[in-house]
């Protein structure tokens, strides 16, 4: 069997089905986030010192943490916070990365290549470090914005490199005197209509990973408000003996990223 025959892409029908599963998963997560205050058994941060580190039971299906907080309620609140912040960050990444890259590629060549060079330097730094730097320069309240901006250079490069400024239809449009702004508007509308869903899901997966990792390192959510990354960071002290304190927030986080990855149609091994 040959190397290239061995590594064959998935059939288109399977890819569509997998994407549909991803979007359904994201839809269910969105509903859960929307109803999180209603579904949670306790308000965020409600502690009970008589119920410290109790394992999962009927009363507390996800157990309790070191302060006696119900992990099911805390996970739902953390998921809501992570989801809302990641959505905002993904929107920033799409506008400042994808949209800006598509426009920049169509600017006069020297300017376009100059911009690509600058963003290329930023893309050579791990997005996580950029986000930590941006959050350190501002405040933890700006973490979702910082996550979006940190992911933007890679999104910019991808969008920039995807544009073919010498495509036949662009040549034809120029030859027939169609204004550059009309061509740009038409191209952007076409590209975003074709790829918006995939780009949005990819950005959501990337921002969720960056945001939660930064929170884990202490550069995300500000206590007492906690997202999933911060919940896992707090659980680090106890999880070796009380696995449930980290397992459920981590499971929720993996589920969000997994659904976003599937919705984006990412290959196994591909980082968003």
């Amino acid at each position: 069997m040959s190397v290239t025959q061995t590594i064959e892409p998935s059939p288109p029908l399977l890819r569509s089905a997998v994407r549909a599963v991803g979007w359904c998963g994201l839809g269910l997560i969105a509903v859960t986030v929307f109803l999180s205050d209603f579904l949670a058994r306790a308000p965020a941060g409600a502690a009970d010192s008589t119920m410290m580190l109790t394992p999962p039971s009927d009363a507390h299906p996800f157990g309790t943490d070191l302060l006696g907080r119900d992990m099911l309620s805390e996970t739902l609140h953390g998921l809501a916070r992570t989801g809302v912040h990641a959505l905002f960050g993904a929107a920033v990444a799409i506008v400042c990365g994808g949209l800006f890259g598509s426009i920049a590629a169509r600017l006069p060549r020297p300017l376009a290549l100059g911009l690509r060079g600058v963003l290329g330097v930023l893309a050579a730094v791990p997005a996580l470090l950029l986000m930590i730097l941006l959050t350190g320069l501002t405040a933890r309240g700006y973490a979702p914005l910082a996550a979006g901006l940190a992911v933007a250079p890679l999104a910019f490069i991808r969008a920039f490199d995807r544009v073919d400024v010498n495509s036949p239809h662009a040549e034809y449009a120029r030859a027939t005197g169609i204004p550059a702004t009309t061509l740009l508007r038409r191209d952007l509308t076409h590209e975003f209509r074709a790829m918006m869903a995939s780009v949005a899901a990819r950005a959501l997966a990337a921002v969720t990973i960056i945001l939660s990792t930064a929170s884990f390192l202490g550069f995300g959510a500000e206590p007492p408000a906690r997202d999933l990354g911060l919940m896992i960071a707090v659980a680090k002290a106890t999880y070796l003996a009380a696995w449930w304190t980290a397992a459920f927030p981590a499971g929720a986080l993996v589920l969000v990223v997994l659904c976003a990855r599937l919705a984006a149609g990412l290959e196994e091994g591909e980082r968003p």
Partner: protein
Amino acid sequence: MRSFLVRQIVSLVVGVLGAVLIAAVISAIGEPRAPGVWPFLVAAGSRLVHFLEGDFGQSAITGTSALHVLGHRLPPTLTLLAEGAALAVAVGLPLGLLFSLGAARRATAPLMQIITATPVFCAGLALAWGAVNLLHWPVSVNMPVGAAVSPDEALQIDALPIVTVGLAGAAAVQLALRRAASQAGGESFRAGLKSLGLGGFEIERVFVVPQVLAGLAASAGEIMLALLSATVVTEWVFHRSGAADLFVKSVALADWNIVAIILFVFAGLTFVAEFIGRIAGRALASEGRP
């Protein structure tokens, strides 16, 4: 080949200069100056000149030279990075091929998707939990830095960070391999060579494998980024005192000279990996071209 080499060298130099510029801007944040944009630009220009002279300033916390601090903290990070990279290639290449076989791919696809959807810090914590509760190994997750351990325990403690970085790198290697193989699969030379009477195995060995390895080498920058990100998180999770751990603490303590030099080194590593990878990729691709 010469013009390609010149282009790559220019690209490397421009990239590194860009990284120096960004580092100078970051370093200028910590400089005492009057408020406003112009004084900041003047401070950034001054820092840039100092950087080009090899003066990276001093740590705002310890007062020692930033280069000295980096010289102390970078080797453990580079060691972890190199060990992780070796594991990534050793595991990523064979597993990438094995998991791509028709039946094996279908069976392992959901597992692979879950693994690659797992943030590195979750993977590191999960590995540590497994090591403690299943293998009864000591782990450094909740251990103070510099705690006394026996040589055997030290080996076990060192293994987990390497495995964590290696797995993150293996995912990147596997992806690069898959992408390169799918590109090589679309090449038109295969039918032509068959009609010339060459056997399938020979075509694969002499022409296709170099093309696939060339594609893998060309993705070296991407693989380096994955390894660097994983190293940052792993050092934090496993309490390793390296440059990546220092970066996180320096941002928290607003020690901008240290932040600037670490960022510069990391960006430089990515550019160098990209440079070497592209040249190696080009050499391999021309070797495998019929």
